[in-house]
C-alpha cells in the first residue's frame, strides 16, 4: 500500500487553514467547521476499519462518550473545557477498549462485530436518554461564554482553526501509524489474521490498541461538537447518524488512506449541501431528503467504479 507523504498532507492543511482569510460567508465557515468535526470522527473510524479491517457500525458510542464527557465535566464538575477535552478523549478511548475487549476476545469479526458495536451504541443512547446525570431526554446545555479560555470563540474562524488543528493532528497520527510496526501488524490482521498470528502478531493486542486510538479520536470529534453547538442530547451524541457519517466518508474518500476521511467528508457534505440548494432552485422549494438520494447514488457509484475511493482514483491516475 502506498503511503501518502508529508508533503501532500501539509499542502492540504495549508490550503484549508488559509480559507478563512478569503471572503468566506458565515454559512460557509459553519459548514467547514462542521466538516472538520465529521472528518475527525471519520479519521477515528478509518484507523479501526480502514487499516484494521474491523468494520464498526457503532462509532456513535465513542463520539457520544466524548461529547457527554466534555459536557458533563464542564457542567457538573466545573472543569475547564481545555482540560475536559483530553479527559473526554481518554473516556472515549476507555469505552473503545472495553467494547473491543468484549467483542475481540469473543473473536467477533465482520458483520457480527458491526452488529455488536451498533448494539453498544444503542444501549448508550438509551442510557443517556434516561439517566439524570446526563440530563436525560432534556439533554445538556452548555452556557454561551464567548471566551477563548472556555473554548468558545467570538470570531468563528478560531473554532474552525481549532477543529482543523485536531484534524491535522489526526492526519499525522495516521501517517505515522501507517508507517509503524503497529500499523503493519494492523494491516496484516486485516488481510489475514491466521497468517499474522503465525508471524508473531498478537492479534488481540493489536486490535485493542487500534480500537482505543480510534475511539479517542472519534471522541475528540464529540468534544468539538459540544463546543460548537453547546447543546447535546442522546440522539445527537449516540444516534446512528454519526456512525454512518463516520464510515461513509472514508469509504467514499478511500479506505485506509491518510487523506481519505478528509476528502470523503468534504465531497459528501459539499455534495449534500449543493444538491439541496440546486434542487430547491430548480423546483422552487426545498425537496426534503434529496441530498440523501444524491449521496446514495454516489455511494453506489463509488462501490461500482472506485472501490478504493477517491484517493484510489487519484493514485491510479497518478500512475497512468
Amino acid at each position, binding site marked *: 500500500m502506498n503511503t501518502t507523504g508529508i508533503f501532500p498532507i501539509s499542502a492540504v492543511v495549508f490550503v484549508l487553514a488559509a480559507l478563512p482569510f478569503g471572503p468566506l460567508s458565515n454559512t460557509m465557515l459553519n459548514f467547514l467547521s462542521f466538516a472538520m468535526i465529521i472528518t475527525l470522527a471519520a479519521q477515528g473510524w478509518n484507523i479501526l476499519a480502514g487499516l484494521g479491517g474491523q468494520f464498526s457500525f457503532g462509532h456513535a458510542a465513542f463520539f457520544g462518550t466524548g461529547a457527554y464527557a466534555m459536557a458533563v465535566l464542564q457542567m457538573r464538575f466545573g472543569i475547564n473545557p481545555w482540560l475536559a477535552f483530553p479527559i473526554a478523549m481518554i473516556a472515549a478511548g476507555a469505552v473503545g477498549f472495553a467494547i473491543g475487549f468484549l467483542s475481540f476476545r469473543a473473536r467477533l469479526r465482520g458483520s457480527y462485530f458491526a452488529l455488536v458495536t451498533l448494539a453498544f451504541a444503542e444501549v448508550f443512547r438509551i442510557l443517556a436518554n434516561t439517566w439524570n446525570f446526563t440530563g436525560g431526554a432534556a439533554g445538556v446545555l452548555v452556557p454561551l461564554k464567548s471566551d477563548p479560555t472556555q473554548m468558545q470563540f467570538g470570531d468563528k474562524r478560531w473554532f474552525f482553526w481549532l477543529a482543523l488543528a485536531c484534524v491535522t493532528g489526526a492526519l499525522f497520527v495516521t501517517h505515522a501509524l501507517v508507517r509503524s510496526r503497529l500499523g503493519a501488524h494492523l494491516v496484516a490482521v486485516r488481510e489475514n489474521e491466521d497468517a499474522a498470528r503465525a508471524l508473531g502478531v*498478537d492479534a488481540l493486542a493489536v486490535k485493542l490498541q487500534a480500537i482505543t486510538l480510534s475511539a479517542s479520536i472519534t471522541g475528540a470529534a464529540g468534544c468539538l461538537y459540544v463546543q460548537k453547538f453547546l447543546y447535546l442530547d442522546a440522539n445527537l451524541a449516540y444516534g446512528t447518524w454519526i456512525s454512518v457519517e463516520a464510515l461513509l466518508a472514508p469509504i467514499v474518500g478511500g479506505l485506509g488512506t491518510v487523506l481519505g476521511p478528509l476528502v470523503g467528508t468534504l465531497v459528501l457534505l459539499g455534495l449534500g449541501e449543493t444538491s439541496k440548494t440546486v434542487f430547491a432552485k430548480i423546483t422552487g422549494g426545498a425537496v426534503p431528503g434529496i441530498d440523501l438520494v444524491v449521496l446514495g447514488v454516489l455511494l453506489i457509484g463509488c462501490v461500482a467504479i472506485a472501490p478504493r475511493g477517491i484517493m484510489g482514483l487519484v493514485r491510479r491516475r497518478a500512475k497512468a
Partner: protein
Amino acid sequence: MSAALLQVRAVTKRFGGLVAVDDASLDVAAGSITGLIGPNGAGKTTLFAVIAGFEAPSAGRVALLGDDITDTPAHVRAQAGIARTFQIVQPFAGLSVLENIRVGAYLRHRHRAAATASAVAVARAVGLDQMLEKPASTLTVAGRKRLELARALATEPKLLLLDEVLAGLNPSEIRDMIPVIRKVRDDGVSILIVEHVMQAVMQLCDVVYVLAQGRMIAHGAPGVVARDTAVIEAYLGHGAAARMQSQQSIAASVPHA
C-alpha cells in the same frame, strides 16, 4: 546425543469423535531437516497446527529447547522461534511482496528501516528480490510459495515448519526450490517439512517420520523408511509389501533377454 530442538510427546488431537492425531511423538534435532510424510488424511497438517500453536492438543506435550510450550499461544511461539508456512498459501493479498515480508521482519526489528532491510535480504535469499513492489495477489503459485517461505524466514526462526511448500509446483520449479530450502538449513534453521513430493523428501531429509491414520508408524533415514513394510502398506494397501517383494523377486529371477 544432544537434546532435540523440538520434542513432540504423545500428542493426541480429537475433533469430536474423530481422532486426527493419535499418540504421536517426534523429535527435530537442531540443524536437521526432518520430514513428516504420510497418506492424505493422515493428520500431518493437524500435527503441524498443534506444533505451531493453532490447535490445542487433546493430550500430550510440545517442547521447544526443553521448555514446555503446549499452552503457549501461536504468536508467542513465533517469538520463541517457531515459524510456519501454510499448506494453502495465505498471503496478505492487498499488500506488496515487500510489505508482506516486512510483517515477519517486524518481529525482530522494531524500526521500519531495519525491518525493511531485513525483509529485502530475505527476499534476495529466496529469489523474490525482483518483485518487491508487486502486489502479492499478482504472484504465480510458485511465487506465492516463495513468499510464504520468505515471510516465515523473516521472523528469524530457530525452527521452520514447512507445510507442503512444493505442492502444486512443476518439476523445474521444484528443482529450483530444493536448494533454497537446503540453504535455509545451512544458515542454521532447523526444518520440519511435510511433503508429498518424495523426490524432495529423499533429497532433503535427514530423518523421516511416517504418519498414517493419526499414528506414527515408522521413522528413520529416508532410504530405510521407504522400504519399511508398514509404510508401503499404509500408502498402497494391505498386502502390498508382500506383492512388491514377490514381483521384485520374479523380476530378479527372469534373465534379461
